[in-house]
């Protein structure tokens, strides 16, 4: 029994030793490539090693330098999770904060560009061209909104990472400084506009019971593309239940569609 335990201990030690050796070898090779400026080879060496916070961190550095920020975030997160000391965890988190900050800056500047492009569009040309331009403008404005949300989210992630650095290493002055900068940027962000458009779920709230049934019938007909029939139902319905007048906008739309659908 003692012998088995001894063998198990030796094997475990040997395995640990092999793991350490592989990591050290990956670090040695990767570092050499990194120093020589061969970043892809360095990355291959780091990512080819067994899981270790040092190789993950170094891979993160290379990925960050080559602009692969999503992957860099993954590597730093892994490095911070598996690091065996507070200092190493803090290092990974510091760089994580930096990547998120960079991402926020890029998203913000791209959002600005998209917004400027959208607002510079003027509707010229025939109706086909104008529709195309309106759609393009809307796409750019949507992109601006989405990138703006991404900026906000990235800044919060950056703030979180720097805060965690300070929890681990309270004397890290650079992290404190960067945290202050990020917080200033967050405070300076424009507040997201409230969604004024979109369907109002309470629109039919004040309709009478009869009017609600008529609305439901009209909706069914619209679903089947029977716009003229839907309009007729609504017009007759107004006489049966005057509260349906509240949905005059619906009738106006149907009226416009039926007029536009007539053959010229």
């Amino acid at each position: 029994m003692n012998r088995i335990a001894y063998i198990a201990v030796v094997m475990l030690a040997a395995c640990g030793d092999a793991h350490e050796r592989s990591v050290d070898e990956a670090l040695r090779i990767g570092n050499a490539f990194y120093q020589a400026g061969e970043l892809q080879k360095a990355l291959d060496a780091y990512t080819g090693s067994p899981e270790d916070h040092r190789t993950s961190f170094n891979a993160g550095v290379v990925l960050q330098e080559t602009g692969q920020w999503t992957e860099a975030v993954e590597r730093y997160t892994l490095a911070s999770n598996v690091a065996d000391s507070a200092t190493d965890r803090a290092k990974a988190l510091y760089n994580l904060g930096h990547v998120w900050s960079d991402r926020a800056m890029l998203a913000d500047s791209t959002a600005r560009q998209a917004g400027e492009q959208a607002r510079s569009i003027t509707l010229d040309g025939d109706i086909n061209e104008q529709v195309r331009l309106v759609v393009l403008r809307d796409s750019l404005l949507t992109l601006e909104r989405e990138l703006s949300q991404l900026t906000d989210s990235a800044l919060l992630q950056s703030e979180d990472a720097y805060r965690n650095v300070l929890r681990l290493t309270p004397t890290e002055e650079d992290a404190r400084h960067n945290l202050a900068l990020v917080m200033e940027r967050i405070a300076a962000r424009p507040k997201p506009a409230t969604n004024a458009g979109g369907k109002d779920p309470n629109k039919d709230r004040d309709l009478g019971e009869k009017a609600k049934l008529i609305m439901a019938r009209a909706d069914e007909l619209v679903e089947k593309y029977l716009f003229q029939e839907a309009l007729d139902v609504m017009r007759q319905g107004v006489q049966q239940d005057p509260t349906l007048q509240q949905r005059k906008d619906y009738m106006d739309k149907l009226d416009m569609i039926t007029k536009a659908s007539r053959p010229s």
Partner: protein
Amino acid sequence: MRTLTLLLVMFGAMTMVAQDTTAVKSPMDYFNLAAKQYVKEDKMSALRTLDQGLQQHPQDARLRRLATELLKEQQQQQQQQQQQQQQEQDKPEDGRSKEEQSKGGQEQQKQEQQAEQQKSEQSKERKPGDPGQPRPGEIAPQDAKRILDALDRQEQQVQSRMRQRQQPAPKVPVDKDW
């Protein structure tokens, strides 16, 4: 024979799929879809559908009419929004005239720009990777242990040699030759 049947069935299915994806919608299909989207209060989706329809059928009168109406309505809405915004901007907030406000605003903007510039100059954000550049020449823990062991052994040898040297030399009786 069974294989041939299977192949024929597969070919038929593929053809049907291909036909489905390449099927060109009629102008009326686009019109109906756009109209439904418009009624269901999604004007932008309606315009997107019309854009697709007009690319396929640029001269279709119904599509063009509907597009014209939708654009007209959208422009009216935009004008209303702009007017509302303008009215909100024109509201005096602190009793200052508009000119004063704009002048003050410009100065404030200038100051903010300067502050921002200073801030960016002061920014201490480290360059990516700075805190943890790969550490070349790092000694692995087991290597360090080996070296320390070797040093320890060397030390022991040296010390034993020293001890040997420090041992008192055997006393040799000297016979005085008087």
